[in-house]
């Protein structure tokens, strides 16, 4: 199963960077990506636990069941996939919006979609 690259995987990829090839254009590009990865890891360490706790609290109310983040998130996916929950249900959308705002704050805080979402219709 893949859901998204974990912090451990990012650290592993960073450790695997071949310093010997420094100097060419490809290496310069990869160095910028590596800087982004390190910044992502820092944001995840600072923001991730709070975001996950908030998601768990929302999911318990939304789904009416108890559990940890992975189990609750999987349950939400299952209910959306088989139609037990509607994608346009306001409570569902509110959770999805809150979750993705927290995730983009970790993954790519300068992404313009965040500004677009904050703008009134």
């Amino acid at each position: 199963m893949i859901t998204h690259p974990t912090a451990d995987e990012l650290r592993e990829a960073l450790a695997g960077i071949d310093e010997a090839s420094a100097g060419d254009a490809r290496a310069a590009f990869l160095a910028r990506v590596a800087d982004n990865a390190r910044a992502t890891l820092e944001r995840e360490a600072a923001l991730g636990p709070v975001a996950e706790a908030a998601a768990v609290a929302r999911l318990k109310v939304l789904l009416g069941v108890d559990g940890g983040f992975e189990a609750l998130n999987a349950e939400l996916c299952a209910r959306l996939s088989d139609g037990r929950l509607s994608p346009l249900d306001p409570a569902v959308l509110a959770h999805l919006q809150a979750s993705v705002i927290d995730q983009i704050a970790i993954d790519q805080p300068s992404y313009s979609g965040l500004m677009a979402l904050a703008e009134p219709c």
Partner: protein
Amino acid sequence: MLATMDVPAALSALAPRLSPGAATALNARRLSGGASLETWAFDLDDGAALILRRRPPSALMSDTALPLATEAVLLAAVRPRGAPVPEVVHVCAPGDGLGEAYLMRRLEGETLGKRIVRDEAFAGVRPGLARRCGEVLAAIHATPLEGLPPLATSDAANELQRYEAVYRDLRPQRPIFEAAFRWLESRAPPLERPVLVHGDFRNGNLMIHPASGLVGVLDWELAHLGDPAEDLGWICVNSWRFGQWRRPVGGFGDYQDLLDGHAAAGGGAVSLERLLFWQALGSLKWGVMCLMMYASFASGADRSIERAMIGRRASEAEIDLVLLMERLG
């Protein structure tokens, strides 16, 4: 065939057949860009400026990309319709020593989306660009289908099924993508009349000249038969607005200019609603592509930091999808 694929040598050997006055190729250099395809710029000694597009022998053919010879035929088919595309000068045969490849005349301009949406050099052409994109798409979509090489036909429901199958294979747990598949499935418009669709018409695949605007539509490897609104929606996906999110068409123009240009050039009426459906499907496709590229890291096929980090761009597709679900309902 040359054993080692020495590209500059093979181009020089080919030079006299590309131009009667040419004896050799000069300045052959690999341009950055495509991950699966190589692009080389070179000159002939009679002054001609050319581009080589080739599939390296190591590249795996994806199941949706067209053979390069087919791409060359499409360029020749749309050019007389008024679509700005490079002129193909030679489609390579095995004896040319370049593998699967073709050669075309080099165009002058910029393809980097970030520069096109921001640089002062393009300020003069930006206001007319969205309308021009609509006109050019109408010309492409009007290409007679008789005589075209065999192309797959795909409608909205097919595209959704194809990407959902890829998503299911990866087995991710991403509720926004789950919601988006069901939301779009209930809204998938029927394909009324299949037309030639470029398939990757976005800021990044358009050659823009600071004075003459859109001079080349590049990268035809995803061309197929389908809904004209697919191309109109794809160029509006927020991921290729390069931060200029208030300008939905490629980060440089407005929806209405694109649609007006398309209609004025005979493209037939496409509603904004239909365009937005395809824009949303475009964001979903991009999100699944990000996960696919990350999957090649997760499986061990490519352990580069680039492949890992692109997985973290799936959330940009998600935030764009949430906005569209909220606003469109």
